């Protein structure tokens, strides 16, 4: 972009490189000659946005369309925001510097609840009204998608169209629809109506919501005939045919994930009951080793990166992983390209594979048992036995490692104090395991990282209440008191942050007024310690008449109409409920490969059944 207009602003910001574009492989088209100008907006910093694989994929995908130009924009850090406001300049796109208010549509990706204020702030900084109803047909459409759009309601007042599910095909269809509507000159109202009739799109203004006296939802109904009562998510059925950005923009700045990220699988065969990703991305699908290998090779050639990381929710469940790793190692070692695998499962076979990979580059080992006792691991359906954990740790130590990280959660449903003490005991056993043999080196470090359970929509725990944050803080202290070894490094999350997450995760559209109010008061970057303020948020809720406990700390009734029930993810509410009951009975459910539990997601695969476990017709 031509930065002359912004040169005097950029001199006064900490990291000007965030705001100038010009990265190698950026896409250049002439905005004046294309039919449709889109801007993909990431509601967090440039460094975080540039690390997001989903955004890279979708921007690349849209730019493949003739006559469509998709640029990029990221949330400006407050120093840049102040400069823009002082100089009365709107937020702009990085490729051409065009103000966001001049685009046909802005596409926001919602990666976490705590970015909602940034979404609204970016709309505001573009010089646009925050509320969808206040934006005319001449103004850009505001479109949003990503993991948080599975409960889009907190942003219902601000977003014109939500994209539900995987975007590669859906967004191209939507772009086509907007292009047609633009050509025909139809009204915004008509465009929204047509969009609501495309599969996978939700137009919040076309639904009527009523409430019971106790504040729960009474009804959620389309306002117009033809608008679907249930919005079904979209998925890609053939992962080998899906677009992959081999040539995506190369950041200059030191971004979070600065390497080639290769998607291996989508969905997960396991059904951990707290895990939203495990449900919303069902069914499990994967790419072939040949396809991944070819993509990886091309990506290295186009970028010059010296590291490839394989991304997957649970990579050890990819049956062809050994084959893939061999294919990759056949050329990466020679080219001095490192390979990294996510390491969240405990399994001795996987550890051997890791060793092979790590001969190129050694990095930390992480395991996620999530709970400290077998009973609680059964409740959450984390099918790992303590012996598995210990065997894998032993193997890792024998292989020369002396540090590992364990992830746990506090506040899980049915949790008792003994489960928390169990975390300390497990960590201690691992430390003892290290010292049971004579080993070289400086001793062991076991990091115990504990987050707070946040009940999420579309999980078997969606009805649950989050522990009160004082209770969570008590549990954090309890664990602290039971950790005695100095070899154990204990880290925990701020319970107040988790509480705000829970409010928005389980929220409904009445939260919109608190969000708008917060943004007007200058609230932003809630995911950043330096800007998060629990006290501020409590006052925003109080001033707008919202009781955060109603959302975060109330058990929802099993027959209650939930704010996100109108979205169809494939997995049925009946299945989630049966999983809830099994959790209460402390019984586990096998993974999709062992046995299909008929969750309903197979209906998304067009009768073929799931690849993890093809369902036989009966």
């Amino acid at each position, binding site marked *: 972009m031509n930065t002359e207009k912004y040169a005097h602003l950029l001199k006064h910001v900490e990291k000007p490189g965030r705001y100038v574009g010009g990265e*190698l492989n950026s896409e250049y088209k002439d905005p004046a000659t294309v039919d449709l100008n889109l801007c993909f907006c990431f509601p967090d910093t440039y460094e975080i946005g540039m690390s997001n694989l989903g955004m890279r994929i979708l921007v690349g995908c849209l730019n493949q369309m003739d006559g469509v130009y998709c640029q990029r924009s990221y949330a400006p850090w407050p120093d840049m925001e102040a400069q823009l406001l002082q100089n009365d300049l709107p937020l702009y796109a990085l490729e051409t510097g065009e103000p966001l208010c001049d685009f046909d549509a802005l596409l926001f990706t919602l990666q976490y609840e705590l970015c909602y204020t940034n979404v609204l702030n970016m709309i505001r900084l573009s010089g646009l009204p925050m509320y969808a109803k206040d934006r005319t047909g001449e103004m850009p459409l505001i479109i949003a998608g990503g993991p948080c759009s599975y409960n889009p309601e907190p942003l219902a007042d601000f977003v014109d169209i939500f994209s539900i599910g995987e975007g590669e095909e859906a967004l191209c269809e939507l772009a086509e629809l907007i292009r047609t509507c633009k050509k025909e000159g139809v009204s915004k109202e008509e465009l929204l109506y047509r969009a609501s009739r495309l599969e996978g799109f939700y137009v919040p203004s076309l639904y009527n919501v009523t409430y019971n006296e106790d504040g729960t939802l009474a009804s959620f109904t389309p306002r117009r005939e033809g608008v679907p009562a249930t919005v079904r998510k979209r998925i890609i059925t053939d992962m080998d045919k899906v677009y992959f950005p081999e040539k995506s923009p190369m950041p200059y700045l030191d971004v979070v994930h600065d390497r080639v990220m290769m998607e291996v699988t989508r969905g997960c065969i396991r059904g951990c009951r707290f895990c939203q990703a495990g449900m919303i991305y069902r069914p499990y699908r994967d790419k072939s080793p040949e396809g991944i290998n070819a993509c990886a090779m091309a990506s290295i050639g186009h970028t010059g990166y010296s590291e490839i990381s394989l991304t997957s929710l649970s990579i050890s469940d990819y049956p062809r992983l050994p084959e893939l790793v061999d294919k990759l190692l056949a050329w990466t070692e020679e080219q001095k390209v490192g390979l990294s695998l996510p390491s969240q499962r405990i399994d001795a076979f996987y550890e051997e594979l890791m060793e092979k990979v790590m001969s190129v580059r050694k990095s930390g080992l992480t395991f996620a048992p999530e709970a400290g006792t077998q009973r609680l691991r059964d409740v959450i359906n984390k099918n790992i036995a303590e012996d598995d954990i210990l065997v894998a740790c032993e193997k890792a130590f024998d292989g020369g490692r002396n540090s590992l990280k364990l992830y746990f959660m506090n506040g899980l449903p049915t949790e008792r104090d003994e489960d928390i003490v169990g975390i300390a005991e497990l960590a201690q056993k691992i430390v003892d395991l290290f010292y049971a043999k004579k080993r070289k080196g400086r001793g062991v470090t076991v990091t115990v990282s504990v987050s707070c359970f946040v009940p999420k929509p579309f999980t078997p725990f969606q009805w649950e209440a989050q522990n009160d944050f004082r209770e969570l803080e008590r549990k954090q202290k309890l664990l602290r008191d039971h950790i005695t070894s100095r070899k154990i490094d204990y880290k925990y999350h701020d319970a107040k942050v988790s509480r705000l997450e829970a409010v928005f995760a389980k929220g409904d559209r009445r939260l919109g007024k608190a969000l708008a109010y917060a943004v007007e008061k200058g609230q932003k970057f809630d995911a950043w310690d330096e800007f998060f303020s629990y006290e501020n948020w409590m006052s925003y809720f109080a001033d707008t008449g919202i009781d955060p406990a109603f959302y975060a700390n109330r058990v929802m009734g099993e027959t209650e109409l939930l704010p996100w029930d109108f979205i169809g993810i494939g997995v049925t509410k009946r299945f989630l409920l049966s999983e809830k009951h099994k959790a209460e009975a402390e019984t586990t459910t096998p993974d999709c490969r062992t046995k299909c539990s008929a969750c309903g997601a197979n209906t998304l695969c067009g009768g073929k059944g799931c690849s993890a476990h093809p369902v036989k017709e009966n």
Partner: protein
Amino acid sequence: MKYVFATFTKTGNLRYISHLDLQRAFTRLLLRTGLPIKFSEGFNPHPKLMFAQPLSLFQESVCEVAEFRFEDDCPAEAETLARLQAQSPEGMTFTKVEYSEKKLPPCKAAEYTLTFETALDVEAFQALFAGEMPVVKKTKTREETVDIAPLITEKSFAKTEKGVALRCVLPCGNEYLNPSYIEQFLGDKVTDMRVMREKLMF
């Protein structure tokens, strides 16, 4: 093994990219060329790369020099130049490639064009450079006031649309003077200074 000296520009929006970030981008550029780059030994092999004189954020240059190494079997200089150019991002143009048996000698001085936005005319502006020019230089451990006037040599002033342009030579190496000290000295007499490094002297 050969040393390769590549001369390139860092202009336009690349002035917003720090030296550290440029180093990383340059490494990746080298890897994309497929040229027979020599890697460092050790656990985390990477191309051995050096720059003649780092350039600060907000400054541009038409004469940056990078030094890296080739394995013995390498293409002619012209081909290397073309392959580097084919991979260069916006704002970076390769102008020269030279092979050498020896390392790059230390850089002694650099010539700059400094373009100031100022209300002063050339005479009044020039007068500011006539006497002592004290600035506060910060090092890691202390602050000291130094007179930078003797370090600014071969000055010539010219009028520009929005102020004055100064062409001058500043020392590199131990005596290195960052042009930003001149802006610091001038304080509110200028509203902006653009830096273009024109030539490196070895």
